[in-house]
């Protein structure tokens, strides 16, 4: 029984991270959309897999509505909401559901990304400024990539210039 409970606890923690992480990245997406309203092409990208949030999100929503249901002192039962805590992945607020003194569920109520840090744990493509990707006026490169050029277009390409420059 102990093992099962432990495994259940681990699973719950992972689920929290997944839910929280997706909530976080959704927040990032909307935040960036607002800040770059003048860029029509930059909004509503990075879709999250539809199945995961709906599967994991449903019970969380239900429990949130049952929040603060009589926290008792002796044999505690009910939902307890923690304070907003700063983590390396953003601000997290969790809710713990206790039944007869035992934790039966933990839910992430709030996870916001701060400074785009949470994306570092994922492989999401996030908005990046042009000034961030090429800062030098002159860059030493070995080869120049790009969308496939024809033999004719090669003649006017940077790669041709590079080759002619004597690499």
């Amino acid at each position: 029984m102990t093992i099962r409970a432990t495994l259940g606890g681990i699973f719950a923690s992972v689920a929290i991270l997944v839910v929280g992480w997706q909530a976080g990245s959704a927040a990032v997406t909307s935040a960036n959309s607002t800040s770059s309203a003048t860029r029509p092409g930059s909004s509503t990208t990075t879709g999250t897999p539809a199945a995961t949030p709906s599967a994991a999100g449903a019970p969380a929503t239900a429990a949130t509505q049952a929040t603060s249901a009589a926290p008792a002192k002796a044999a505690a039962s009910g939902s307890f909401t923690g304070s907003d805590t700063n983590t390396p992945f953003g601000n997290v607020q969790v809710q713990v559901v206790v039944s007869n003194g035992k934790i039966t569920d933990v839910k992430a109520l709030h996870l916001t990304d701060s400074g785009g840090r949470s994306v570092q744990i994922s492989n999401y493509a996030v908005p990046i400024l042009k000034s961030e990707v090429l800062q030098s006026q002159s860059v030493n490169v070995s080869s120049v990539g790009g969308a496939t050029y024809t033999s004719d277009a090669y003649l006017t390409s940077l790669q041709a210039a590079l080759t002619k420059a004597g690499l």
Partner: protein
Amino acid sequence: MRAHVFDTMGTVVSLTLPDSPAAEAAVAEATRQFRLFDERYSLYRSDSELARVASGEIPLTAASDELRSTYAAALQWRDATGGSFTPHRPDGVVDLNGTVKALAMQAAADTLLDSGFSDWCLNAGGDVLCAGHQPDGTAWRVGVVDPADRGSLLFAISVESPRRAVATSGTAERGDHIWLATAIDSTYVQATVVADDIETADVLATAIVAGGPSALASIVERWSVDVLTVAPDGSLRATPGLTAALVTEEKERDGELGSRHGHGVPARCEIDSPVAKPL
């Protein structure tokens, strides 16, 4: 260190190799590999096997094992990308251009490695596959063209094993044979994918341009690749791995990308401004 250039597959290949008595033979063998693939798969040659399949002269079932396995692999890519990549033209013709150039690059790479060349950089029409390091021991650096201005670089990354393949797909130039059964997504005008092998990089770059944000989200989740996309308005998205590989002023200053061995001749070229002019 010298760039050897040859025409093939309707584009130009640049192969940068250290100077060596064996270099010419290695370049000739690499050239032959591209020619072999072109002769079998080009739809611009009426006598290629694939052109004869397309015209109905050879039933697909009677085609060579090589052709059928290349086709089967392309179909697997189609399934893996949810159809964002496809070897079928809208008119139903089997067109393997989406994978053949990458396969030829890999074949050429294999011959280079077999003949003892461990440091080289191969650029086939804008797709780049590198091995080893530059002569001074630093990582190969691959720049990628700005789709809004072909005369300037958009970004540059250092390429180190195992992520040694950099493929870029876009709507700006040749189109890269991007087709979809449904309408082509117009969210990205260019996508660069960095992967361990050039076939994966090439196919996924095409799939991202063709499939748009949903393809991008699915691909970065399922494949171990780095991606940078360009939207029509010039706005960019990048995965953390790509951002980490960027050549930036800060990294140059900190010497992160500096010479590891401290000797040898840097084989580099300054691109201060677009110097390309029609010949």
